[in-house]
């Protein structure tokens, strides 16, 4: 008798949990951590259209999940283009905007916070973000920077709220900013409805949603969004105390956000995409001082709150494996981009599952045989414990050849049934 959607759902959840807990599963699953344009490309839908027509995009992801035999509903990394348009975002560039229709959306890194603004940020991060960062990352929110926004407790009296707030909200740039936020919300309503429908449909078909929400590690938050790689790097030398103070501040808030996300989404898995802790981006000494303590605190807090942290170690984390041994065994769903898999097995094979690491270059430009050889190598290495989940280094590559994604599944079935 064929298993029902509900049974398949439970099986897949159990298999995922078993692998993370280092219990040998029945077989090696294929679990793409996220997806951008692969599924729509397969259907001949342009990257531009994928950003507007959410139902078609989610339907394409559903079909790809079924066709290519994935063991979970991947996280759709392509958000609503009309949301960016409503905000007049200058922090992203997208297909159909000033990029060609077949390009991928891309993040524009910049020093959105200047080094000399640390103290202002630390004194009142919300106020600073609202009045300084938002106008810099979104043209239509410029008005938020043009008015003296008061601490809200100063107007914690309806009469004063009316006199002060009434005047503030009358200013045309402020009205424009508010209208742009509402337009963004309208755009997102369509996306979120399509997302919820996708999650429900996939669950009914037997595919668990991988994550509820993503939480950026504290150092990456400062480096990616506020200071840029160059800025945060120079801060390690020129403003180390302020950088650390900002990391401390965002650690507490990141922990709060992670626990809130688990409650809101009722999904214990928290996605933690990482950027700047990789080998090469800093020395061990700098890693120990600026990156690791806050990252570890976030991971431990998620575990203590009953959740399952799913860090995506982007870049080459081989030099950092010794630190990962400090994390509790069997609690972390660790996804790797370019790590040395043999060294991982030596150092962490009995403490942590191994997820990802099939090179995007092979999936995009190699032969099906090369894909199968790579999967076989992984299964030969991790087959004794079965603590392995297959995926590319960073989710499904946009340009992966469909036959190679099929070969990934076939190799899992051929070599990975225990």
């Amino acid at each position, binding site marked *: 008798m064929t298993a029902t959607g509900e049974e398949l759902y439970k099986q897949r959840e159990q298999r995922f949990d078993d692998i993370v807990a280092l219990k040998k599963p029945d077989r090696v699953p294929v679990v793409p951590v996220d997806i951008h344009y692969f599924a729509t490309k397969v259907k001949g839908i342009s990257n531009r259209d994928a950003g507007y027509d959410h139902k078609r995009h989610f339907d394409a992801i559903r079909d790809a999940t079924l066709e290519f035999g994935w063991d979970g509903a991947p996280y759709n990394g392509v958000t609503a283009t009309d949301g960016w348009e409503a905000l007049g975002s200058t922090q992203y560039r997208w297909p159909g905007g000033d990029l060609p229709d077949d390009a991928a959306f*891309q993040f524009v890194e910049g020093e959105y916070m200047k080094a000399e603004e640390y103290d202002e940020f630390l004194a009142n991060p919300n106020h600073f973000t609202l009045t300084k960062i938002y106008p810099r990352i979104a043209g239509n929110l410029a008005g938020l920077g043009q008015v003296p926004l008061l601490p809200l407790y100063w107007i914690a009296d309806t009469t004063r709220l009316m006199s002060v707030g009434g005047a503030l909200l009358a200013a045309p740039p402020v009205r424009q900013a508010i209208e742009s936020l509402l337009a963004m919300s309208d755009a997102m309503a369509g996306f979120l409805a399509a997302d919820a429908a996708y999650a429900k449909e996939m669950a009914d078909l037997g595919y668990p949603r991988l994550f509820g929400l993503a939480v950026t590690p504290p150092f990456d938050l400062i480096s990616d969004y506020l200071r840029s790689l160059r800025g945060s790097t120079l801060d390690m030398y020129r403003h180390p105390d302020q950088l650390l103070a900002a990391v401390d501040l965002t650690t507490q808030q990141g922990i709060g956000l992670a626990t809130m996300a688990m409650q809101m989404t009722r999904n214990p898995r928290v996605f933690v995409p990482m950027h700047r802790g990789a080998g090469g981006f800093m*020395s061990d000494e700098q890693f120990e001082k600026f990156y690791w303590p806050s990252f570890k605190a976030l991971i431990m807090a998620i575990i203590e709150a009953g959740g399952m942290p799913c860090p995506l170690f982007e*870049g080459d984390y081989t030099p950092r494996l010794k630190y990962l041994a400090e994390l509790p065994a069997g609690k972390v769903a660790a996804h790797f981009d370019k790590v040395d898999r043999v060294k991982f097995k030596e150092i962490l094979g009995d403490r942590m599952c191994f997820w990802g690491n099939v090179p995007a*270059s092979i999936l995009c430009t190699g032969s099906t045989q090369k894909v199968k050889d790579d999967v076989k190598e992984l299964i030969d290495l991790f087959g004794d414990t079965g603590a392995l989940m297959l995926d590319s280094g960073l989710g499904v590559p*946009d340009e992966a050849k469909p036959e190679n994604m099929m070969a990934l599944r076939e190799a899992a079935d051929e070599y990975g049934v225990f």
Partner: protein
Amino acid sequence: MSNELTDAIVGMREDEALALVKAMLDGGTDPTAVLEAAKEAVTLLGKRFEQEEVFIPELIMGGEIMKAISEEVKPHIEGGGDGAKRGTIVIGTVHGDIHDIGKDVVVLMLDVNGYEVHDLGIDVPQEKFVEAIKEHKPEVVGLSGLLTLAFDSMKDTVAAISAAGLRDQVKIMVGGAPADAQVQEYTGADGWGNDVGQALKMADQWIGGEA
């Protein structure tokens, strides 16, 4: 004081390095010698990077200190003080990709290591690479990219260079986080790298020579 300056830069002591530069210039040291000491420090950082003794932060910070020193010294040098170059390199992020952080670090290190670098920027169409090769006659071309769509852009760019009859005149390196031997083979490039050390090593091997 030249050695002290080199030490201060390699040790990432920015204020000390700049104070030394001022003292050297005030004391009548040849400004070209000051610049040479600073360049030696950054070259040393590049070598240590290859040995994995220092990492990207030291290169970025070393580049910043170098920039500050150049600004201090250049007014004292007639004609800008740029000496003979070891070779010419044309570099850019390929069409469809707008990432520049890695490329910029590579450009900086090639520059301080004595190469004349023409940075074509980001999202560079293949024709622009071809034009730049005709104009600057480089020995080496660097194609950078972070996204998987860059694989095809790199391949198309190499093909365009071949079609223009220029392939024999240049060595081509492909670089960026996802680059590997597979990408080199696919694109038809001569080498690959995913960090600045590999880019420098290839340039040194292919061009050789001293500044």
